[in-house]
């Protein structure tokens, strides 16, 4: 084994005490692997020669489970995939269902969806920022990020009743309208957030140690990024201006004014800057959505698909019958197949639904952005130092719940 080692010239030393490669297993319990990711690293000294990600520790057969559940029961499963961005998962799933059913969603419901998804995106990026900084060794940022995230989770809880598993969207609209006082609370948060974002920048962006740990590390070029299927901030960090909200607008995103931040270098620092700037843009979109909220219905006019209001159910015979049928038997979805992509916080989240015409889908597949982004880890990490692998994983912002499904 030792005789066949090839050493790149820059690491050639005259007297090698350890003329061999070492294979170490990083994870699945390693704190910086964000869940249960295992990496098999072949090291030459401190340099990574080969990275082999090993996933599946969190596999729970969710895609199988969808086939045994009615369409509306599937929504709660989506929460558990990317558990940092559950509303994004809800949205992708319900929009795929709505595409099959051909439903028209009321303006207020679309606006609330945009508002909640952008708040969720900020919350997801805050967890990334806190843990990414923590991995690199800056502990303080974590507490500041979670302080702000808590405020968003409180807002999501006020709207949906759940903090991490909201299941707020339904095929045909929303579970219910926003509660009284929500708009003021949301306004309060939106006022507080820009100074907080300034604090994060003060803590990290100008920090020399953080810059040295991230600049020029984990490089991937624009061509490679597209070839490896990267999406979201990872792709934009390589200078590719691509955002599904712009490219294939959904849920009325075409009406919002926002920038798509890109950074040219393709390193950990670029991906950091893209996400930091994205939080500002999400804040901008959320503020626009909040200012556009007009009274109106939040459910589509489709009595055979959308559950009736409680009041109507108690006074109208047909509403009661529809309620009973939807809950007991579900609703039939036309046969066919759709793929609906959205821009989740980590990249392109695509939902493929194949329907045979009944109340349960024949196949549901989630194209998780983390799954694809992680598959490019070997290209980014090979040739780097082993300590930088931690920074690179952090910059990919992977969530194992979505990768393993």
């Amino acid at each position: 084994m030792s005789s066949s080692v090839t050493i790149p010239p820059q690491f050639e030393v005259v007297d090698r005490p350890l003329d061999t490669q070492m294979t170490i297993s990083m994870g699945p319990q390693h704190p910086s692997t964000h869940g249960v990711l295992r990496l098999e690293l072949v090291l030459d000294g401190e340099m990574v020669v080969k990275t082999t990600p090993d996933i599946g520790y969190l596999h729970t057969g969710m895609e199988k489970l969808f086939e045994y559940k009615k369409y509306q029961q599937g929504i709660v499963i989506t929460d558990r995939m990317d558990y940092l961005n559950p509303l994004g998962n809800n949205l992708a799933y319900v929009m795929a269902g709505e595409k099959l059913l051909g439903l028209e969603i009321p303006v207020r419901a679309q606006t609330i969806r945009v508002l909640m998804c952008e708040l969720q995106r900020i919350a997801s990026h805050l967890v990334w920022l806190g843990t990414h900084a923590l991995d690199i060794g800056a502990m303080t940022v974590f507490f500041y990020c979670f302080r702000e995230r808590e405020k968003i989770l409180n807002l999501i809880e006020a709207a949906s009743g759940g903090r991490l598993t909201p299941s707020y969207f339904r095929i045909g609209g929303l579970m219910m309208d926003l509660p009284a006082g929500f708009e003021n609370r949301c306004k309060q948060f939106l006022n507080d957030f820009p100074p907080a974002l300034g604090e994060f920048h003060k803590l990290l962006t100008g920090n020399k140690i953080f810059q040295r740990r991230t600049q020029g590390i984990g490089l991937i070029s624009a061509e490679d990024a597209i070839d490896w299927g990267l999406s979201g901030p990872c792709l934009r960090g390589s200078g590719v201006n691509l955002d599904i909200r712009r490219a294939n607008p959904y849920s009325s995103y075409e009406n919002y004014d926002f920038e798509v931040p890109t950074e040219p270098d393709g390193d950990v620092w670029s991906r950091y800057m893209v996400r930091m700037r994205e939080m500002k843009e999400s804040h901008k979109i959320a503020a626009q959505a909040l200012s556009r909220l007009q009274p109106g219905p939040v459910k589509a006019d489709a009595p055979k698909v959308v559950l009736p209001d409680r009041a109507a159910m108690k006074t109208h015979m047909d509403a009661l019958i529809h309620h009973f049928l939807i809950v007991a038997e579900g609703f039939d979805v036309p046969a066919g197949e759709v793929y609906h992509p959205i821009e989740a916080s980590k990249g392109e989240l695509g939902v493929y639904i194949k329907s045979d015409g009944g109340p349960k889908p024949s196949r549901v597949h989630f194209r998780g952005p983390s799954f694809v982004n992680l598959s490019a880890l070997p290209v980014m990490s090979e040739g780097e130092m082993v300590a930088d692998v931690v920074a690179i994983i952090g910059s990919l912002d992977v969530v194992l719940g979505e990768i393993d499904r």
Partner: protein
Amino acid sequence: MTSGPENTELPPEQTPSLEGTPSPLVTALQREHPEWTAQVIEAFGETTFVIPRDQIVAACSFLKSWPEGQFNFLADICGADRGVEEEPRFEVNYHLFSTTKFHRIRLKVVLNEEDTHVPTVTGVWRTANWHERETFDLFGVIFDGHPDLRRILLPDDWQGHALRKDFPLRGYEPYSLK
């Protein structure tokens, strides 16, 4: 099927085609490659080509470099089981996307249960690697020429393919590491 409007220019965004009238994209493709564009499904605003199995690599490489389509991004590959009784039983769906023209297309390969081999497209896009491993793991579709066709989500010694319709939801017996 080739009687659509004689228009080589693609619209800026994909517009859902009218009933029976193929979109300009489909017409242009059918003119260039009649050998794998015979079966087209246009529904829900999405275009699907059912590709003969031995043409899938050629189709993917062509679409990737086709100046009018520029489908340079492989968004997803996913398998599907149509049902134990169905013939052909399995399908593999390739979701292609263009990072410059922002339109999407789906390629579909259908497979019989006895012969679940498909040529790999890892030579066209490297991102196909994990997608194909996942499809192999869950459906038992074998991608010929794949550099590293191992299970990815389930353990290496797992018996069967979990997303097949004849695989029970709760498995055959509780799994334990041997």
